[in-house]
């Protein structure tokens, strides 16, 4: 039994360290500046005020170029917004609907059941207005990039003057953490760019932290429920396994 546990834990450690290409990739670039978000870890929960502020940053800054297609306005309940607040937010967006009785597509005010609209009609349109680059949808950005939240935060805060010998392409920007260091996105955040409703000072670091928290929620809205259910399940299955082990030991003590 002890050998079994040893073997299992050895396999686990190997899996955790050696085999994970994510770990591999993360070691390639510069060390990420900020990775300890409160929702990371076994008991971690989303920072609610940061979520709301992050929504504001997304709406006022990111949404100009980036979609959030997997999030519907109704999902914002999870941020602590009331039904009326959600309705009000939805109504600020124009959603394409149709065809109507004349066969035409038309625009109408958003409803809670609608999803955040894409800023561009399609990928070609997006590239045409962004110097050939395609601003990715942000619904899964923290889940779909090695380095996760820490990477997205690093990109948002990693703009620098390029080194003297660096050949920067036209219309490109130098970012310490982007693979190849040339990124089409101009520095999106400046101090004081948004006016937070809760009075928090809008520094670049704060805004980056807030919007990354919001995007982490957008990628994994089930995170808090998952951990809470998981804890109960583990305690239960642990107890059940202990009882079964006791029965097992007792029954086997009869064997001679």
């Amino acid at each position, binding site marked *: 039994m002890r050998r079994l546990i040893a073997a299992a834990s050895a396999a686990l450690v190997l899996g955790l360290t050696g085999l994970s290409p994510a770990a591999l990739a993360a070691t390639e670039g510069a060390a990420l500046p900020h990775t300890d978000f409160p929702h990371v870890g076994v008991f971690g929960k989303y920072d609610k005020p940061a979520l709301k502020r992050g929504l504001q940053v997304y709406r006022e800054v990111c949404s100009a170029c980036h979609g959030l297609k997997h999030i*519907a306005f*109704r999902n914002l309940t999870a941020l602590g917004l009331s039904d009326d607040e959600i309705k009000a937010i939805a109504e600020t967006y124009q959603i394409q609907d149709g065809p109507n*009785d004349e066969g035409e597509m038309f625009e109408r005010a958003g409803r*809670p*059941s609608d999803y955040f609209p894409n800023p561009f009609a399609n990928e070609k349109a997006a590239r045409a207005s962004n110097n050939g680059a395609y601003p990715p949808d942000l619904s899964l950005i923290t889940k779909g990039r090695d380095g996760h939240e820490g990477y997205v935060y690093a990109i948002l805060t990693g703009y620098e003057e390029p080194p003297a010998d660096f050949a920067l392409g036209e219309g490109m920007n130098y970012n310490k953490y982007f693979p190849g260091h040339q990124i089409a996105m101009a520095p999106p955040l400046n101090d004081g760019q948004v006016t937070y409703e809760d009075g928090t000072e809008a520094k670049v670091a704060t805004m980056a932290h807030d919007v990354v928290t919001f995007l982490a929620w957008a990628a994994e809205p089930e995170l808090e429920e998952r951990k809470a259910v998981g804890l109960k*399940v583990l305690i*239960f*299955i642990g*107890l*059940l396994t202990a*009882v*079964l082990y*006791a*029965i097992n030991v*007792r029954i086997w003590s*009869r064997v001679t």
Partner: protein
Amino acid sequence: MAETSHQHGAPGASPHGETRRDFLVLTAGAMGAIATIAVVWPLLETMNPAADTLALSSTEVDLTAIEIGQSITVVWRNKPVFIRRRTQEEIDAARAVSLDDLGDKQTDEERAQKPEWLVLVGVCTHLGCIPLGTKKGDPRGDFGGWFCPCHGSHYDTSGRIRKGPAPRNLEVPAYQFVSDTLVKIG
């Protein structure tokens, strides 16, 4: 079932002849039962309408374009909803009927929030076909409302069953007038 409940010896007897069900086995059995339920329950719950489906469960309809005497069909929760702007004669006909003549006794006042507008789920209460009577030229049955071609149910100008096998009146969905020309169904 008497035979199955009949006890033969002790089912929990161990080879050593202990007859008492001991604490550990009972605990494990109870926990196993809870675990089984805890596994099966979420599996079954996945088949409920999902959150995005539920979010679409209300529909808003603009009534501006509907003329007197005209009907339209809109889709609500995968079902057709009939909206008829009734003529005065149709309203009068619906209100003149005595409750004694009805199988499913409902007054027209109970069924129409505004006399002019009738909102109905367009599904025959017999076996789920869609009755005729909404489009121009459709047969409207013996009572000027709707006629279900599947098994010959006749509905009146209030959508009430008057003749044929259907057991109940056409269902009135929950709806409210957001404004004079906008109705929200669901």
